[in-house]
């Protein structure tokens, strides 16, 4: 179905259009980029009407073309929620960089290029195509951080590139071993022919290293705080919103199905890394003086829950991992968006310099409070169901050693509420008496994310219905063991 390909082509065409009309006016290229993101959301809505979100089996929607080598796309339960997330965060990122005046046409073109590549990762049904898109994601992100980032951008851009490139280089060896061992490049054929692999554990870990760096898991997470803090707002939104999800998606799509037998020893490793990540990320977030770094480190903690949930290896565990990913893909962009809007007005992110913004800028203050509550996992908002499921399932699988994960939840409440108390509450600081509150244009992306967070919090079944079959298939593979 051509509409599936449009999901990749529309942002790409939009990117070319952005650069093309950028010579006429910056406004034209902004509109072109907004048009492209709305159009790709429209394509997704059309596909939704065709039933891609209704919970199709693992072999759902496919488009393969013989004329283009390795071109093989598929939408199924695993990719559908992440595709929707990509479309939404792509739109939010474009709106968030509406005020970007430095080479704005190239900025928007890169955002769209990034959206196209990430969409490609989630759509690829061929392992070579997946790798192509996987690497293609790096390039626009590198330039987004390096050109439009903050003070220390060059270092952060390089660190981001080297870390993730190193991870994906190992992943490539793993992929090639699988491809040459099995003689297929199609992912579903790789999965069904997996018994031909001589060293499945080696293949698994080579591939998993790439995913763990991307996720990121402790101890290979150190690129993330730098990249997040230095990236421009739109870059942070896409980085937190969808790029990190590629790691979790890759584990579920590629590493585990190709070598489910490795789960026997990988599960415990994932659980340990997950718990360390949860506590370590949360503890670091607790002592940050920079608001953006606090949000960035909270991502490490949340991604720890993804790993913990996967480590349970059950259907509900995998569902929890997906829920945490989607939820974090909404909450983290909201917080980055708000921090970015604050930074534009004040040119600082020092928590200690703010106080009482709830009085001066009530709309911004309420939004930040909402975001913090969602981030700490308040029931009724999107963070709760996923983290709840992941802790329960992990407890079922590993019992009492999972108690430290609960400590992570407590620290999460502490750092989020601390941020709210310092920044929003208290008597307003003199310095920011005249601060401008969010206007209607600023509120559009904020409200989009807020609405999605509430909907997912009240009704997590939306995601579960989309992907139920896929989770069951995966859990069966893992339980089967080989």
């Amino acid at each position, binding site marked *: 179905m051509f509409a599936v390909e449009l999901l990749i082509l529309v942002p790409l065409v939009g990117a070319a259009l952005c650069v093309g009309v950028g010579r006429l006016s910056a406004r034209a290229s902004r509109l072109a980029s907004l048009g492209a993101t709305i159009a790709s959301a429209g394509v997704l809505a059309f596909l939704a009407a065709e039933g891609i979100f209704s919970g199709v089996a693992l072999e759902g929607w496919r488009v393969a073309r013989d004329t283009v*080598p*390795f071109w093989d796309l598929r939408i199924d339960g695993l990719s559908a929620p992440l595709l929707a997330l990509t479309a939404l965060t792509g739109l939010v990122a474009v709106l968030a960089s509406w005020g970007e005046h430095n080479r704005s046409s190239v900025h928007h073109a890169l955002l769209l290029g990034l959206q196209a590549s990430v969409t490609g990762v989630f759509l690829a049904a061929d392992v*070579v195509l997946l*790798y*192509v898109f996987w*690497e*293609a994601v*790096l*390039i626009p992100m590198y*330039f987004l951080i*390096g*050109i439009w980032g903050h003070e220390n*951008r*060059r270092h952060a*851009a*390089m660190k981001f*590139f*080297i870390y993730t*490139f*190193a991870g994906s*280089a*190992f992943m*490539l*060896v793993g992929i*090639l*071993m699988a*491809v*040459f061992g099995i*003689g*297929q490049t199609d992912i579903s054929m790789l999965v069904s022919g997996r018994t031909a692999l001589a060293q499945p554990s080696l293949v698994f870990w080579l591939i998993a290293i790439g995913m763990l760096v991307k996720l990121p898991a402790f101890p290979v997470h150190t690129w993330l705080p730098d990249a997040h803090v230095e990236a421009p707002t739109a870059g942070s939104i896409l980085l937190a919103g969808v790029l990190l999800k590629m790691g979790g998606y890759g584990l579920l799509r590629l590493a585990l199905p190709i070598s489910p037998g490795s789960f026997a020893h990988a599960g415990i490793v994932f659980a340990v890394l997950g718990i360390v990540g949860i506590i370590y990320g949360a503890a670091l977030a607790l002592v940050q003086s920079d608001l953006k770094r606090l949000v960035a480190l909270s991502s490490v903690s949340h991604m720890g829950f993804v790993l913990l949930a996967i480590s349970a290896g059950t259907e509900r565990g995998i569902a929890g991992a997906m829920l945490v990913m989607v939820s974090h893909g909404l909450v983290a962009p909201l917080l980055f968006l708000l921090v970015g809007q604050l930074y534009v007005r004040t040119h600082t992110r020092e928590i200690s310099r703010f106080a009482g913004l709830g009085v001066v800028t009530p709309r911004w203050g309420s939004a930040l409070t909402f975001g913090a509550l969602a981030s700490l996992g308040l029931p009724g908002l999107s963070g709760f169901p996923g983290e709840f499921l992941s802790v329960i399932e992990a407890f079922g699988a590993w019992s009492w050693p999972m108690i430290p994960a609960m400590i992570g939840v407590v620290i999460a409440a502490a750092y989020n509420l601390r941020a709210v108390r310092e920044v929003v509450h208290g008597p307003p600081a003199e310095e920011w008496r005249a601060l401008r509150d969010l206007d209607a244009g600023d509120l559009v992306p904020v409200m989009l994310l807020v609405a999605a967070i509430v909907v997912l919090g009240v009704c997590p079944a939306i995601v579960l219905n989309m992907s139920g079959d896929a989770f069951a298939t995966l859990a069966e593979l893992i339980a089967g063991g080989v």
Partner: protein
Amino acid sequence: MLSGYWHFTPEVLVVCGAFAALFGGYLPGKDRGAAYAAAGAAALAAAIVAFGGTGGPIVFGQLEPDSVARYARTGLAGLTAVWVLWVAGRGMPGERRREGVALALFATAGGMLLSMAEDLIVMFVTLELATMPAYVLMGYRRKDVSGLKRALDYFVDSILASVIVLYGLSFLYGISGSTAFSGLELEGSGMLGFVAVMLTLVGLFAKVSAAPLRHWTLDANAKAAPVSLAFVSTVPRVAGIVVMSRLILAIAASAPAIGILVGVAAAASMIAGNCAALSQGDLRRLLICSGIAHLGYLMMALAAGTETGYGAAVFYAVAYAVPSMGVMLVVAEEGVAIGDFARLASRRPWVAWSMVLWLLSLIGIPPLAGFFGKLYLIGAALQAELMALVLLAILATLLSAAYYFRIVREMFFGDEDEQVGGAIEPSHAATVALALCAVATVAIGIGAPRLIAALGVRFG
């Protein structure tokens, strides 16, 4: 017997182009017109090879215009056309264009014949034809005494390598009693066979500047004009790589030690090239060092000693040369110090983004030529279970990202206050040449699966 001679049409065209350039003084437009005529001849030759058919052995089996040769000859003639077009636009530094262009075309003709060679004698003669003009190109600036001295070094060292190759070839002939590649039989030749193979390979490695005898390339090339280097480090080298791959494949079956020899040289080239490239501030040196590393990746596939490895190596030779030519031509325009590239993105955005494309291809980022090149190289090595070499290649690639990205950083995030030389005169011919390099880098990447299938490589 004469039936296959039409296969030489492209080479004849290239030689005609060379003569047209030599006598360019009589052409309209003189010097520049000569270069345009030569570029046209080379481009036409590339088109004829690309769309012409392949065939079995010709000239008593001494040459074989097979699919591998077709790919290599298209690449060689195409690269030369791009280079000459650039020269037509920007000229050779300090001298007339036409002799340089003519020399390049003679080298190309030699290289195209070389990539069809199926015979030791033909191989040696065309190897010399392909590399001799390079000596003159390296010392093209007559008034530059230190450059001339280094060109002489290059000449002497290269001749030494030729003599070593020749010595090795004489043993190969002595052992197997045949000069045809297909007749080379080293089974049971013991130590003598090993020595013969080692001499031949070491000489050939030196010719294409791989380990162990690689230092001379660096010393001899480091002060040459970048435009000369752009040609010498691509076209004759690709031809050398192709024939080396052919020869290795031909003797691999009967000389198992060859895999170890090539593998060790591959590892040494990867390590030495990348480590040396890391600390270079002069882009010529950086690109030469990284070129040694790229040869290491390529030889990793040859170490497999299989048809697959052979096809992958030949594919990579061109996939590496195209972006490398692009980068070197921009170095010829902008300057050889890394600081000369500061803020290129704001001065010449299209050139800067093309540079990014080439550098990414050299690192091996999909979907560019270099990615698929490395994919097939690694694939061939994995099939032969050369796991250690594969891991080394991956680490080496990571290292290479570090130094290639220094250039990207300088172009996009360099210090603005640094005053760099005046604006470059616009030149349509040079712009077209660079654009062709950029398009080819993407096209080879996207067309890679089909190209590699045409080279007869089958995976799985």
